[in-house]
């Protein structure tokens, strides 16, 4: 085997320029695929990193399950069951309602427990206090999100400590909906959280449920001790018929999308590989012509068809190995160039937050598997391209081949 390659190497060394050109042809194709794939991978990694940074990976968002027409509600007993699962730190149920002030300002209300704040740690008070559900009074204490507070200050001239009356519309099982009024007192105002909480009004969950007369929760946040156990806890939750989502879903979605995009781009950049393959076919056919006499001689000296085929395929394999190595190196070079040139371009085009998020780190990512695939492509390509010429060489009649001038 070693000798076969030594022999093949000898043959290749006689036509260095030709071999270099084919190797370069294949390598450029491989490098194009590697560059595109590395870009796709780099953007994917960036996106996933961003999701990880902005999402709590240890929280599972539970909602009512609906399967085959059966609705499974989040009830007290279900929450109890979930809390007993291993790795579950705590659960924070909540209800969602919509109140309207006397001046027809709509308020998105969320009835929460103190644990809710344990999950959304970005909820900081700017003024006032969080409500204390243990103290009963004839009004309901509320905390306003940053934007709601601004709106109410402008439209209704309300601030911390002010009281006002709001209505909630209740839809019973039968009959027309009825409205119910309640007195609210603004206990505190939140700092800007930069998310949907800025438009939210918070109220204690017990009072909220008294108001809306619901007997099940609208949602439940489950905190798990480690991201690694999120999947298993999630499965348990789904087993009892509830719907569960986590940041992992978003990550999975991004992964799926980027893998698909990368595959499509990689496929099209791979078309350049066809050119490389044709070069190998062409060069090897020429080589068979040039060495017809040598092939006839080898057969006269006792070479079988298989021996001849092996010599030509060994040459292709060497070309493939060289193309793979050079392709990997060029591919790394390509991705560095994409990073240097493409990143500033992307940042300026995307602008804003998305662009700024690309600032750190690189937009391309070369992984060992990308390089391995690039190498393998080059190998397979050259062997497959060499099959036809090698077969052609092997099938030459020794006598005819020897007669060739």
């Amino acid at each position, binding site marked *: 085997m070693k000798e076969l390659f030594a*022999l093949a190497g000898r043959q290749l060394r006689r036509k260095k320029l030709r071999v270099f050109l084919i190797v370069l042809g294949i390598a450029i194709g491989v490098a194009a695929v590697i560059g595109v794939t590395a870009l796709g991978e780099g953007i994917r990694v960036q996106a996933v990193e961003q999701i990880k940074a902005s999402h709590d990976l240890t929280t599972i968002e539970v909602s009512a399950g609906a399967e085959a027409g059966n609705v499974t509600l989040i009830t007290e007993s279900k929450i109890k069951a979930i809390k007993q699962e291993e790795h579950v730190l705590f659960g924070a149920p909540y209800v969602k309602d919509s109140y309207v002030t006397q001046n027809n300002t709509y308020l998105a209300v969320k009835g929460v427990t103190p644990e809710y704040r344990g999950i959304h740690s970005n909820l900081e008070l700017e003024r006032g206090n969080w409500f204390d559900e243990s103290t009963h009074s004839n009004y309901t204490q509320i905390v306003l999100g940053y934007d709601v507070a601004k709106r109410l200050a402008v439209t209704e001239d309300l601030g911390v400590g002010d009281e006002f009356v709001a209505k909630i519309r209740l839809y019973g099982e039968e009959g027309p909906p009825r409205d119910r009024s309640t007195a609210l007192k603004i206990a505190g105002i939140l700092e800007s959280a930069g998310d949907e909480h800025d438009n939210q009004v918070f109220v204690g969950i017990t009072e909220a449920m008294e108001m809306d007369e619901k007997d099940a929760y609208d949602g439940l946040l489950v905190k798990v001790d480690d991201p690694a156990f999120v999947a298993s806890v999630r499965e348990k939750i789904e087993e009892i018929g509830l719907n569960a989502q986590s940041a992992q879903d978003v990550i999975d979605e991004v992964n799926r999308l980027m893998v698909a995009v990368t595959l499509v781009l990689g496929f099209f950049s791979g078309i350049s590989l066809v050119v490389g393959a044709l070069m190998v076919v062409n060069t090897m056919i020429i080589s068979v012509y040039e060495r017809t006499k*040598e092939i006839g*001689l080898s057969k006269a*000296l*006792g070479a*079988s068809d298989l*021996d001849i085929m092996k010599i030509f395929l060994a040459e292709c394999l060497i070309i493939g190995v060289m193309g793979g190595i050079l392709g990997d190196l060029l591919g790394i070079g390509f991705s560095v160039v994409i990073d240097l040139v493409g990143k500033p371009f992307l940042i300026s085009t995307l602008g804003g937050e998305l662009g700024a998020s690309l600032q750190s780190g690189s937009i391309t990512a070369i992984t060992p598997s990308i390089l391995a695939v690039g190498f393998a492509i080059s190998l397979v390509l050259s062997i497959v391209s060499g099959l036809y010429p090698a077969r052609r060489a092997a099938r030459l009649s020794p006598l005819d081949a020897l007669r060739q001038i």
Partner: protein
Amino acid sequence: MTVETKGLTKYYWMGTGKVVALEDVDLKIEEGGFISIVGPSGSGKSTLLNILGCLDSPTKGKVFLDGAQVDYRNKKSLVILRRKFVGFVFQTFNLIPALNAVENVEYPMYFNKPLKSKSERKEKAMKLLALVGLEKRANHLPSELSGGEQQRIAIARAFANDPKLILADEPTGNLDSVTGRSILDLLTRLNNEERMTIIMVTHDFESAKRMGTVIRILDGRIQQQER
């Protein structure tokens, strides 16, 4: 190796019609003999050599090598015969340009399995080079050697797999007369020392006569056989 043919006939079909290359050739060559086949161009002497060397197949007739009939339809057995029993020497030397002298001599051993070790093969190739007096040229490429030297290396190569039959097609045809004579002397010496059958095609009747049995061939038929 004894070589025997019975009713050996070869036709070629070329454009307008049938060309007779060999017609009903009966031949018997004893082991260790040195036979020269002489005849003008197109007399069929090279065709005879190619058929005996399993490179070509007859239209009719039989060939026996060491008493065993050659099956020309069995490609694999032909490969084995060429590999193990036959050594070729060509008019145009046919060395592989990419390989140096000793590698050219080793080349047929590469195909002859079971493979001996690389070092054993090289050692044997060096011995063969010494036999033809070219051990000092071992690392030269064919392009760096004279015609006579190339043909000596080709002869060493023909001996690589210890063949029982050497087939030489005009081995001196591309050489000047002095060099040609030294090549013939070499073949005679090897024939005497190694005791293998040598069949040589030539158009040089005078030198052929000195070597041993001469077979004259004309229009595909054996005309006479003389010692």
